[in-house]
């Protein structure tokens, strides 16, 4: 599936992020001293479903294990690192995944994994375009961008990914297998 390329995406995203940040800053500050909570069972299920729709093979490649291991690190090596938001990364993922869940239930009366393939693709396509109505979470295109890149990391970022596509990996130093939270 594809969505129409948007050459003004960066500036549009910037404004969306600014609006979202303003709204969440107070909550984020309040939670800075709270223990780092990881993802709930329903959030993990939504992560798995979203990632599999975005990048087929993400579940088998361990996307849930990857994201939860990274969220447990002091310095998560997710693409979230590059967006520099004043919201703790765990809180961002919780908010994004819970909102996908809520929004999907509201629109379809079911969670993402329960939809047929056509409706799953339509939902994710709308997320990419920022077209989901009554969305109350982080900016939709940003959620699409980050979840898609997490899934890409596990499906296309490992030595086995290159072997599958018959592309030489050519490591100087081979990465560890799996995603230890250290």
């Amino acid at each position, binding site marked *: 599936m594809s969505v129409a390329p*948007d050459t003004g995406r960066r*500036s549009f995203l910037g404004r969306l992020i600014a609006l979202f940040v303003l709204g969440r800053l107070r909550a984020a500050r309040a939670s800075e001293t709270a223990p780092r909570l990881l993802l709930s069972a329903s959030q993990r299920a939504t992560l798995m479903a979203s990632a599999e729709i975005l990048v087929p093979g993400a579940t088998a490649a361990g996307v849930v294990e990857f994201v939860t291991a990274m969220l447990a690190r002091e310095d998560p*090596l997710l693409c979230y690192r590059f967006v*520099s938001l004043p919201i703790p990364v765990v809180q961002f993922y919780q908010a994004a995944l819970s909102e996908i869940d809520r929004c999907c239930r509201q629109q379809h009366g079911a969670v993402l994994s329960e939809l047929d393939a056509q409706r799953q693709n339509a939902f994710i396509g709308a997320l990419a375009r920022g077209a989901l109505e009554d969305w109350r979470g982080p900016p939709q295109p940003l959620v699409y961008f980050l979840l898609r*890149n997490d899934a890409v990391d596990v499906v296309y970022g490992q030595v086995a990914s290159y072997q599958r596509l018959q592309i030489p990996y050519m*490591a100087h130093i081979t990465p560890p297998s799996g995603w230890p939270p250290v």
Partner: protein
Amino acid sequence: MSETDVAIVGSGATGTLLAARLAAKGLKVVILEGGPNRIPAQLISSTVWSRRLKWAGPQVRLAGDEPLPFPFEAGWGRGGSALHHYACWFRLHREDFGIASLHGVGRDWPMHYEDLRPYYDTLQREIGVSGDAEREVWRPPGDPYPMPPQPVYRQAELISRGFERRGLRVAPLPMAINSVPYNGRPACIQDGWCDAGCPTGALANPIAIFAEALERTGVKTLYRAAVTRLVSDASGHRVQAVEYFDSHGQRHALRAHVVILAAFAVQNPRILLNSSSSQHPAGVANSSGLVGRCLMSHGAVNLYGMFDEPTENHLGRTGGQLFSQEHYRTGKPGPFEPGYTLRIGNALKLGDIGGIANARADLYGAALTDFMRRAAVNLGTMSALCDSLPSVSNRVELSSEKDAHGAALARVVHSFDDETRRTIVAATEEGKKLLQDAGAREVWAAPPRTEHLMGGTLMGTDRARSVTNGYGQTHDVENLFIAGPGLFPTSGAVNPTFTALALAARSADYILAQWTGLRAAA
């Protein structure tokens, strides 16, 4: 309170070069590095694990129409951003030094190309640069490269056909990457892992080129030393000490005869602005009001073509294989007509921000799977790097948020002007045509982006319109120097690292020549 001759903030390319140069002449040098130590054995070949090298210090708030990708551009730990840089070591063109005189826009540099040429020549010989000076018909006068050019693979050969058909010239990309063993460092094995840091030392990152010299000359580096401010003397004309916090949160002050800020184009202004006092109410070295102002980034765009033939896009270097400056500005006086450099044939990885999967960020599901299968074998790419003029509205300023030590975070505001946006569009259209002429079956461009950080602490001759002189010495504070691309008055349309290093080498000579005076005034 400890004391040293020279305190350098930042262990990146320019900080380590200055440390090596000054310590070699017997000065006692301490480097304060905000991030952790790094050793080559940690430079894992992975698009995920390599993110450890990217910025993880105090957050930087990003704003504007084209926000700067600071966390991606900057480095975290020993080696700074140069530990993951692509080593495209271009020289600025002669005309880049006089944009204002030639075109009535932007600013002139406080020097001519001829002033910097000896430093380019010396550095390329000392460190090692590969290339073909004769084929670089756009290159200003300079010594030939000490190493032959890098190998060219199928991707660049295919794309260069498009240039040839249009009568446009290409040349091997000048790179601070060994094409043959040089100065005890091995030749590159062409695996495209430059962004993950090069553990073999073939790529001239600061660890590869300066670690031995720093150790031999007794330079001390303090890691996880978070510099928060500079402490001025009563006169305000000198900096007495650098205040920093160690990893246990303990505050320290390091006294120094000379202080050099080499912490990149955002953290340097942040430290200066956070150092306000009764002597410097607007921040240290900020009598011009220009600290943090005129931050620049190149306009950039990635261009893609899907070929019928295999492109071997996994081979080579991340920065590319060939380049063309047929669309660079000329030195002809008159209206400013921005130019650009096209870099051809970047080695690609499957994932990460600049990887194949994000060449079509709009694809997902089965369409992405199909695209990845084809692109891994048949994708070719090049990228345009466009001129960008300084604007005072593009800036580093202090946020109301504080870091763990109570120092205000940086907020960076950046938008392109219309001229730069038009140049990006022109480069995009030209690049797509060239790929079509090269025989690509499908051709497209990614959304425009920013690349590199420059400005924010401009150098110049007029103290009312600049922060430092041509040696990086601040106009207001005689023993305070700035290093790095933050000094650039204009951007040119080439990667900035080689020029930043040439300026730092020039600053080192100046500091050594002026040392008696700089120290005597203490």
